[in-house]
């Protein structure tokens, strides 16, 4: 029997404010790989992550997690949203935020137990943030906030992780912490899809790479796919027509 893909996306089309951002996306993620999701601004990278998480309505297509619909398989996915998506003035400390990763398992009335707190603390330790557990989150640096989000995803104890620009605007220490974490996840046969901006580090960080520009341009092992030709295609002028067409569709449909 063929192994079931951690995430299978079929014929996915997503529009944001009527403007199609992703068209007919099709892929299956290979198990146990670190996968970089790369493409120009406005290419729909974050949208793809959100669509997989069920945070955006799909115009067409479906997403399957280990062959099952998302709703029954949410516990299999860990999620790291963009840092700017929340208000960091919220009256909450780092440990509280990390514990939220356990909420999905608590049922309607359940409260986080001692075990949940211990897991949260352990995950904070993994990202080197144990000393900041009781800090209010606005007092953390950008990189530390990012690590808190990573720790929260770890507490979800998932099989697949989706990370939306974890490397954006972080310090060197955080970057190293994230890289170490990615390696550790890979050792545990976890599948990780990471939205990534820095083209220089793609080869170093990721086994596979997905080039995206409104459509799926290329997807495969980094050494085969991450070539200058493919990058030129993804970022270059040949695909400008795609963006233009999307504008026109937004105006017409």
């Amino acid at each position, binding site marked *: 029997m063929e192994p079931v893909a951690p995430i299978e996306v079929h014929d996915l089309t997503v529009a944001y404010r009527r403007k199609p951002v992703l068209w*007919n996306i099709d892929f299956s993620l290979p198990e146990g790989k670190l996968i970089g999701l790369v493409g120009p601004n406005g290419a729909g990278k974050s949208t793809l992550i959100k669509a997989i998480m069920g945070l955006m309505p799909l115009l067409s297509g479906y997403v399957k997690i280990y062959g099952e619909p998302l709703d029954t398989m949410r516990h299999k996915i860990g999620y790291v949203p963009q840092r700017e998506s929340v208000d960091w003035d919220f009256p909450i400390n780092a440990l509280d935020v990390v514990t939220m990763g356990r909420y999905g398992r608590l049922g309607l009335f359940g409260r986080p137990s001692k075990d949940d707190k211990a897991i949260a603390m352990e995950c904070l330790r993994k990202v080197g943030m144990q000393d900041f557990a009781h800090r209010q989150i606005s007092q953390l640096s950008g990189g530390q906030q990012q690590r808190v989000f990573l720790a929260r995803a770890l507490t979800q104890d998932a099989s697949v992780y989706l990370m939306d620009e974890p490397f954006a605007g972080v310090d060197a220490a955080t970057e190293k912490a994230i890289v170490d974490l990615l390696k550790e996840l890979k050792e545990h046969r976890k599948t990780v899809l990471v939205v990534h901006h820095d083209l220089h580090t793609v080869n170093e960080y990721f086994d596979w790479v997905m080039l995206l520009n409104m459509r799926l341009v290329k997807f495969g092992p980094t050494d085969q796919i991450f070539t200058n030709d493919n990058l030129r295609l993804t970022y270059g002028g*040949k695909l400008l027509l795609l963006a233009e*067409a999307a504008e*026109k*569709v937004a105006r017409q449909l």
Partner: protein
Amino acid sequence: MDWWDLTVRFFSLADANVRWVVFGSILLGGAAGGLGCFAYLQKRSLMGDALAHAALPGVGLAFLVVGRKDFLALLLGASITGWLGALAINYIVRESKIKLDAALGIVLTVFFGLGIVILTYIQKSGSGSQSGLDKFLFGQAAAMGRNDVVILGIVALTMLAVVALGFSKFKLISFDPGFGRSLGMQVGLLQFVLTTMIVFAVTIGLQAVGVVLMAAMLITPAAAARQWTDKLQRMVMLASLFGILSGLFGAYISFLAPRFPTGPWMVIVVTAVFVLSVLFAPQRGVISFIRQHYANRRRMTREHVLKVLFKAGQDSRQWKTYYPVDQIKRMWSFTQHELNAALAGLQKQGMMEKSGGMYRLSDDGITEGARVTRLHRLWEVYLSRYLELPEDHVHRDAEDMEHIITPEMEARLEELLEHPEYDPHRQEIPYIGKRSQA
């Protein structure tokens, strides 16, 4: 007096009382409407609500100081506390983690609570002539007299002059204060002037329409005007016009039925203008949007009919055959209704010829069918060449794109793809009508 006589009497402005009420309502409607645009664009629409409430203690304090109901003094008092309220809001947002909504709420309730305390104090201390102060809460346009309107007019004209003089600067800080700062503009000062004027706009309206409804006169005309234009200048003028209209008709309705206060009717009139704007404005309006949507769908169906008939002709090499409607229907998932409409439309455009209930493409129809087919297939080539999408994927995408590719995009596609002969399904790309023109 019947309705018509009343109407004539109202609009002739023969009645002195009517005249002042109308002038007053128009002035404050126009001033508030215009200024509201800046608050609207800065997403601070509810500022007017907070400032209107913050003016109340000023009214009470001015009365305590002056000892009688002097319009100018009350206006001044209202402006001072209103302005202090604005200052407090900006200060709280700047210096703490509290966001705008909560800052507005705090200032609104605390100042208003203070105002109520002062008013009840005045009432109970029995300074007799206080009656009428509570008109500032709910407004009474009918109480406006000549002197009030003169003051109103002076304030409104001053504001008009300030807006006109600093228009381009106010525009910039409404859209992009950061950019203004980078240009070395004194954004803080400009914002201060703008806030001060909004305070004045609110306070001059309090007596006529009251605290809560004055907020509406700042928000609703601006939101209505926004539907009609993207240009700030036009938006300000339209919002003023809507404010003026609602002032006029609010006064008119309460003239016809004197039990009805002017202020609430102004708000109802201007909200009606807003609803009509949202529905009927060209381009942004909901109705025009829906109409355009259906027009596009009809055009897409027509283009599909041309395309399937073109393909039938290309496959059979028989361009002159007539097809029965049923057969055309089977070529695509048309519904009977939309197919009939499309066929009739195409016939009218001269793209289709009809004979004995059967249809075929005219020469123009063949050219047009070739164009749609060509766009479809060019797009398929584009997708499969650059994105290496499998054949069964490119078709769906192209189904959408064939309707929206402009001639300019088509030319770029052709050039990029070097005028391909065949699509990925090995079907010929038709250049009929294209090369003959060239």
